[in-house]
């Protein structure tokens, strides 16, 4: 039954893919509209959602400590002393992720039917989208690290395919390449981490790792190194500093892709990994510090850049990076459960934000610059209201979902033995930034006077219905994690083994104080920013005064240029040199030389063919002479 969760979207991929390959892509074939292919793909993912839901219900019925459903698909590797089977495992953590992936995935598939209705190759799009879902589900359902890694690589591949979906545009294709290559760098860390774990624990199954790690540490396992290596994989996949550069460029893909992959699912794969190995992480406080530090820094850094952007999708991209930093901050202070909670709520409102942005872009005929938008509230009321729900959620306004998850992270950052006031302060600052730039986005796009030059209309129902569903979830989804009766915390406890202990000296009442203060701060920031942007001229003047800072932010701290000069150009130069000097100069020359030697030898040998009989006779005499001489030596 577990296999069904993965097989359904896989089948969808195959059907759509084969249909596309054989029928739609041949010349003269009638181009199918997005409806038939989209419905097939949506049905596949919905089937998967139903199976995931069934699995979840089964788990609910089980006693709390024994919530595991395993399914072995086939025996995979049996080499020497190493045995690994292809096993899928559903436990509280993976079932949450499955529900999110399939649920949000279904909504995004429905949305795509409307969004991609004018695209020329919808079969290919939906095939890739299904393949992505299958790979992501494999990632979260894998019972051991190699199985998870297959999914990990699979989502990287699909990310490349989907970002570069309009591959005839070379910039978009380059964005796809950038995503894949930068991800690869992180994957190296993942693989090395796997090696260290196997060497010291002797197994790559997650349950075995969790139970065996403490004794391995006693036997001298470099657990900090292993944790940091795995975290390196997360830095790539989940776009933290310094490997985040691919995510803003990935906005070149279709907007539903950005919603699914770069908001709700793929980038959260790193958080899933951290949660899965949290028993190991808890034993390495050095690694935890690094993780939390990188997470906090990323949250602040990306938040700052988001202020300077004017492309609606780029703002959301940097916002995603910032929120991911939040999640890693949670993992780094020992609150992986809070991180997972934020994954869930973030998937709701970030997907909604992206889909809403897609709706706006669709209506604006492809325009993405928010300075050219404005006053869309009247023309697109459904998009407006759902976007507003997401905006309030991400800004942390109670009682929406984002408030609860963010607050949980801030509380744990403050109170956990691994945390500290600095982490809390950083998180608070990041929250302020988030509220501010999201409000800026909201007011520039939907409020105020209209600056749009095209006639704007609301999007079709296939696009707005998913918006409403996600809106409802963004509003109400937080209630699974209310402090005090955290259902999600209890649900995840057996898997994560996390402690709810606080540092000494922090009482329980501190939690409520922090809660109230973050709510107040969020509300204040939102109100101030709204007022600020009521007069766009004032905002422009403000930007002019601080234009040095603003330019730096707008150019994303020139990081891409820095990487280009420091890393990319030297590599390209070395490759060019290696090509010219070594490949062409040495290897090709050596091979050609063999040919030239043959030709020269042939020319030399040709001189013997004089055509004169007597020369041949002379040669025969010499030969006979040699033979007789040799024989005489033996005899004489």
């Amino acid at each position, binding site marked *: 039954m577990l296999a069904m969760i993965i097989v359904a979207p896989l089948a969808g991929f195959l059907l759509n893919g084969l249909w596309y390959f054989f029928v739609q892509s041949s010349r003269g074939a009638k181009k199918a509209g997005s409806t038939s292919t989209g419905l097939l793909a949506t049905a596949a993912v919905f089937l998967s959602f139903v199976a995931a839901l069934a699995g979840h219900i089964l788990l609910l019925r089980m006693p709390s400590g024994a919530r595991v459903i395993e399914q072995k698909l086939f025996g995979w590797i049996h080499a020497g002393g190493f045995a690994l089977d292809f096993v899928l495992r559903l436990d509280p953590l993976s079932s949450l992720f499955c529900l999110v992936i399939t649920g949000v995935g279904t909504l995004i598939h429905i949305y795509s039917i409307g969004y991609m209705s004018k695209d020329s190759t919808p079969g290919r799009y939906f095939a890739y989208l299904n393949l992505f879902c299958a790979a992501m589900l494999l990632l979260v359902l894998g019972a051991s690290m190699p199985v998870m890694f297959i999914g990990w690589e699979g989502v990287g591949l699909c990310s490349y395919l989907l970002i570069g979906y309009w591959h005839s545009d070379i910039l978009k294709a380059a964005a796809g390449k950038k995503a894949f290559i930068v991800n690869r760098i992180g994957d190296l860390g993942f693989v090395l981490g796997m090696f260290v774990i196997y060497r010291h624990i002797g197994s790559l199954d997650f349950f075995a790792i969790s139970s065996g790690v403490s004794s391995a540490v006693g036997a001298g396992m470099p657990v900090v190194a292993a944790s940091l290596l795995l975290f390196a994989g997360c830095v790539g996949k989940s776009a933290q500093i310094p490997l985040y550069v691919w995510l803003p460029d990935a906005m070149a893909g279709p907007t539903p892709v950005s919603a699914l992959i770069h908001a709700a699912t793929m980038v959260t794969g790193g958080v899933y990994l951290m949660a899965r190995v949290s028993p190991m992480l808890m034993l390495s406080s050095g690694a935890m510090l690094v993780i939390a530090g990188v997470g906090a820094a990323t949250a602040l850094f990306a938040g700052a850049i988001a202020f300077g952007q004017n492309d609606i999708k780029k703002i959301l991209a940097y916002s995603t990076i910032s929120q991911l930093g939040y999640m890693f901050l949670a993992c780094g202070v020992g609150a992986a459960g809070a991180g997972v909670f934020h994954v869930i709520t973030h998937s709701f409102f970030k997907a909604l934000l992206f889909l809403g942005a897609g709706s706006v872009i669709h209506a604006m005929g492809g325009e993405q610059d928010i300075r050219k938008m404005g006053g869309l509230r009247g023309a697109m009321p459904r998009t407006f209201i759902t976007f507003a729900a997401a905006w309030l959620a991400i800004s942390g306004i109670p009682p929406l979902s984002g408030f609860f998850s963010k607050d949980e992270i801030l509380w744990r950052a403050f109170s956990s033995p691994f945390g500290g006031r600095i982490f809390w302060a950083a998180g608070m600052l990041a929250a302020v930034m988030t509220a501010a730039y999201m409000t800026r986005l909201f007011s520039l796009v939907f409020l105020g006077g209209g600056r749009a030059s095209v006639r704007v209309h609301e999007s079709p129902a296939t696009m707005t219905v998913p918006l409403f569903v996600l809106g409802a979830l963004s509003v109400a989804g937080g209630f699974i994690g209310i402090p005090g009766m955290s259902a999600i915390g209890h649900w995840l406890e057996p898997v994560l083994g996390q402690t709810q202990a606080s540092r000494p000296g922090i009482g329980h009442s501190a939690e409520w104080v922090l809660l109230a203060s973050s709510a107040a701060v969020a509300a204040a920031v939102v109100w101030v920013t709204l007022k600020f942007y009521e007069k766009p001229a004032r905002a422009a003047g403000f930007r002019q005064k601080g234009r040095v800072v603003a330019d730096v932010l707008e150019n994303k701290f020139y990081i891409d240029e820095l990487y280009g000069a420091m890393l990319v150009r030297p590599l390209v130069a070395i490759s060019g040199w290696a090509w010219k000097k070594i490949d062409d100069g040495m290897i090709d020359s050596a091979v050609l030389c063999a040919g030239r030697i043959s030709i020269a030898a042939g020319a030399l040998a040709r001189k013997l063919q004089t055509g004169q009989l*007597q*020369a041949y006779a*002379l040669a025969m*005499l010499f030969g006979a*002479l040699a033979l*007789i*001489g040799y024989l*005489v030596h033996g*005899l*004489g």
Partner: protein
Amino acid sequence: MMNAAAFFLFGGFGLAFSAMAAFGRNMVGCAFSLVMAFFCFAGVYAALGAHLVAVLQIFVYAGAVMVLFVFVIMIIGSRRMTGAGAGQGRFVTGAGVLAAGAALVLLIKVFRGSAVGTGRVSGPFTADAVAAAGGNTRVLSELLFSEYALPFELVTAVLVAAAVCAVTLLIPKRERSGS
């Protein structure tokens, strides 16, 4: 009975005449030297007790083959024998002669040193036995028609074929298509 003197005489002259035939300048001179060489070879054969072979040598070689050579030389004409005695060029000439000389030395060394060259295997046809059976001619002829009859007939066929071939080659062009 072997006459050593006869052997050395005929052998020496044979060598001399063949050298003249091989390296002579004048074509007719070459041809006649070769005739004389064949006569000397016949003498050697006789000294070795192969009387029939000696006589056949004179009939066939000195008598028929060389006549043919002289005919052809006359037909073609000495005037047109450009470069008749000239060699290939000094280098090739030198190399050729040197190589031949070296091969000769080697061969002699081989013969002298090996049992083949010095031993005498006894067979049924010693000089006395042959003399008792009626002489070399009779014995060899009997052999040719009994034991070697097949090669004899084959050689006959070869001769016929050669005759036909030679005639074919020499028929004038305009007659060839008709025949």
